[in-house]
Structure formats: structure tokens, C-alpha cells
């Protein structure tokens, strides 16, 4: 069952399966009709396994896992939940499980989940039982790091990234809160936001309080990080600690605001973004109604507009942070899902695009499974 796109939507789970050449796509679903699916992720260590984050309008958040490539789903026996607070402490409850990340290859069965309000959780058994990561959730600085700005959906903990060389080296991001790093398996954390703008704050020169929308780590070169932020596109080459704003090289008329950023599976210098309108009242739609992907082949020094096949006018959609992904083909396939329920595919690294599904519910997550 190669070449599957899992589509998490506001109203259920769908999938698109391709032939070997990725030219014909067959839509299946819905599964879990009416469930809000925030993220669906394949386990690269055991590809028949998937984990999915869900809730419904009425019911609390939970997680499901599959051991048969998504044919059947089993609900977690202990979904992500904060510890019960002591008397006098501010109570915290998970409102949504927003993000899922498989653990390091050396830890089979390990998964991380990020929530809103901002919490980090870990499972040791493929997502059946979850426990709070106290080193982050109870860090003395957590109330300041995840103070948010009372945004309607709360602070979102996302972009949990595990260094493939070490299970102890972790990154995560909070929108709004910033990027944080742990080098001891999550026992302690420190902000990693130097060089990142936070021009919405009264004092933009702060160590945390930034708004990363999506942070990625290149799987082949794990010291190379990219970030699509509310305030620009950035690159960081560790061990440096200062992010470089590579979005300054985007066309000024387009700017460098967006939600997703996607890495090439092999080339650390190639990334794709989907810019959105962050002007005036922040419409967050494709810019001027003309959607386009932008690609850099040189780590953000220059960018190319890629819009062949995409609507040329009057297309006002948004691509959310989990809704853009790449496959690992020899010529990389790139995919995005829109807030208007369309899935667009490119099998030539973004040069040309075609719509492979439409009329779905609002797409929250689009992930590739081999």
C-alpha cells in the first residue's frame, strides 16, 4: 500500500492512494465521520502502524492507533492528559491533541504528542498509554513560556522534533511561545529563539513569546533546522543559536508569512513554503487569490515561485501547518491540502500541480505514508 496520503479534516479521516507512478489517486473514506482529526502520522520504524489525534465537537480529546495501515483503529487506553493539580494550583486540561511525532529509532514504540493548551506527552507503547512529560509541563518557566496571548484556540504545542542521532535531543515549538530545546530527553528545556522577530509584542527583543508556525529538522542533516514563523522564514545551522531570516529573500510583494514548511527528504538545501496574506487584518488566504508554492534550492538564499497548474485567480484558500508534505520518491512528490477541502499534488518537486481531490471538509492535516 505505497503512496498513501492521510487526510485529517474537521469532519473525519480520508485517504488517497496512488498507483506506483503517482498519476492516479483513489479517494477512500470517510472513517470516523464527524471527528475532528488534527494529525495522522505513520510510524517510520514500523510502517504498518499509524497514530491519529482526534476529538469531536462534544467530546474530549483522544488518540487512536492502527496496526494495519489504517484499516482499523483502537482508542488509547490512557489518552494524553495533564497530571491532576494540587489544591490551589491552576488546573490544566488537554483541549485538543494537536501534534504527533514518532520517537527516535532507538526507542521503538515511543511517541510524543503536543496539545493545546501547551503540553508535551509521551507514550512508550505505540500510543496506547500516554504520560505527561513533567520536565516540560511542570518546568518552572512553563507558565511564562506558554503564556500565549489568549488566542482563540489556545497555545498550540507542535513541531516536536527528535534528533535521529540521539533520543535525548528534542525540539518543540509553541504557537505562541517560541522554540525550545532539550538535550536530556525532555528533563530540562531552554528557549531557542535568538534572531527570530516577534514584532507583535510590545518588546520584540525577548527570549521567548515568539510565534513559530512550523519547525522542521532535516532528517539527513539534523543540525539543519528551518522555521516558518508568524514573522518570517528562518534557518538555523546548529550548533549556532541564532536563526537567520531567509524569508528576506522572498519577493517583497509576497512576503514570508505562512504556516507550513516542508523539507526535501534528501537535499538539506531544498525547502518549500506556501505563503499566505499576513497584511492588514491578516486574511491568511493565498496572496491576491493567486495560490503559489515557493521553493528554495539553496537553503533560502533565493526562492522560485511554483504555480503552474494552480488556480490563476480568485482562489482564496489557506494551507495549515500540518497540511503540506513531501514523499520520498526519486523525483519528490509534494502535496498540500486546503482549508476548502482540496488536495493538490505535484510529482515534479513543485514545478506543476494538479488537484487530486476536492469537496472534502476543511483539511487540517495531510501526511504521506509509504
Amino acid at each position: 500500500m505505497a503512496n498513501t496520503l492521510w487526510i485529517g479534516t474537521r469532519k473525519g479521516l480520508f485517504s488517497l492512494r496512488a498507483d506506483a507512478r503517482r498519476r492516479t489517486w483513489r479517494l477512500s473514506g470517510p472513517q470516523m465521520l464527524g471527528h475532528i482529526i488534527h494529525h495522522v502520522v505513520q510510524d517510520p520504524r514500523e510502517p504498518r502502524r499509524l497514530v491519529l489525534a482526534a476529538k469531536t465537537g462534544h467530546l474530549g480529546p483522544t488518540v487512536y492507533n492502527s496496526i494495519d495501515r489504517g484499516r482499523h483503529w483502537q482508542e488509547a487506553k490512557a489518552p494524553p492528559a495533564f497530571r491532576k493539580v494540587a489544591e490551589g494550583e491552576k488546573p490544566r486540561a488537554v483541549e485538543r491533541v494537536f501534534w504527533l511525532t514518532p520517537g527516535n529509532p532507538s526507542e521503538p514504540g515511543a511517541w510524543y504528542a503536543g496539545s493545546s493548551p501547551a503540553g508535551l506527552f509521551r507514550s512508550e507503547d505505540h500510543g496506547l498509554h500516554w504520560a505527561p512529560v513533567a520536565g516540560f509541563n511542570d518546568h518552572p518557566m512553563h507558565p511564562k513560556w506558554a503564556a500565549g496571548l489568549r488566542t482563540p484556540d489556545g497555545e498550540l504545542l507542535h513541531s516536536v522534533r527528535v534528533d535521529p542521532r540521539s533520543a535525548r535531543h528534542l525540539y518543540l515549538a509553541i504557537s505562541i511561545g517560541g522554540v525550545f530545546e532539550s538535550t536530556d530527553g525532555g528533563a530540562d528545556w531552554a528557549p531557542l529563539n535568538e534572531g527570530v522577530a516577534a514584532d507583535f509584542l510590545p518588546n520584540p527583543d525577548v527570549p521567548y513569546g515568539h510565534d513559530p508556525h512550523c519547525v522542521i529538522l532535516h532528517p539527513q542533516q539534523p543540525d539543519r533546522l528551518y522555521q516558518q514563523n508568524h514573522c518570517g522564514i528562518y534557518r538555523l545551522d546548529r550548533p549556532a543559536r541564532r536563526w537567520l531570516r531567509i524569508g528576506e529573500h522572498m519577493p517583497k510583494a509576497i512576503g514570508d508569512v505562512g504556516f507550513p514548511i516542508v523539507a526535501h527528504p534528501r537535499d538539506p538545501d531544498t525547502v518549500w513554503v506556501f505563503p499566505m496574506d499576513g497584511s492588514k487584518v491578516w486574511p491568511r488566504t493565498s496572496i491576491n487569490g493567486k495560490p503559489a508554492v515557493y521553493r528554495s534550492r539553496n537553503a533560502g538564499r533565493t526562492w522560485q515561485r511554483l504555480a503552474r497548474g494552480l488556480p490563476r485567480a480568485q482562489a482564496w484558500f489557506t494551507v495549515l501547518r500540518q497540511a503540506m508534505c513531501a514523499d520520498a520518491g526519486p523525483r519528490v512528490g509534494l502535496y498540500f491540502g486546503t482549508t476548502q477541502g482540496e488536495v493538490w499534488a505535484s510529482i515534479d518537486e513543485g514545478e506543476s500541480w494538479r488537484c487530486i481531490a476536492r469537496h472534502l471538509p476543511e483539511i487540517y492535516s495531510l501526511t504521506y505514508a509509504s
Partner: protein
Amino acid sequence: MITVRVPSPLRSYTAGAAQVSASGRTLAELLGNLDRHHPGMRFRMIDEQERIRPHIRIFINQREVQALTEGLGASDEVHLICALSGG
């Protein structure tokens, strides 16, 4: 045994049953026993701080209750209600 009326969003936990029975001297006990027979059901209604979730309402007979410490009698009926607006 107390009769519990189950709304459709929770019936995946009761094998489709719209009505189940459970015991308990308080609402907390009843929900705990309900969860033993229908694992996972309680957490979808009650958060980790023992609060009823925002879009869940619980009635004992005709009276809406907000505390899990509410007492229950054998002849009581508990209604679990899902309350949400919008599309």
C-alpha cells in the same frame, strides 16, 4: 441499578446502546463504574481535573448537575447530554 441515557456521540462505547445501567452512590462513582464497563467513556465527558467538559451536560432526572459529588438513589435516571451549536 441506575438507568443512564447515552447520547449518540458516546454510543461507540456502549456497543450502540442508548440506555445502560450502572451502580453508584454518587455521580463520580457511577461514572467510574460506567467506565469500567465501557472503557474510555468517562474521559470523553470528564477532564483530568474532574470537571465536566464544556459541551457535556449531565442531568439527574430533570435537574442539571455540575458536581460529581451529587448523590444518587436507586430510582434515579441519569441523562448524559451533548450540547453544541454551529456547523
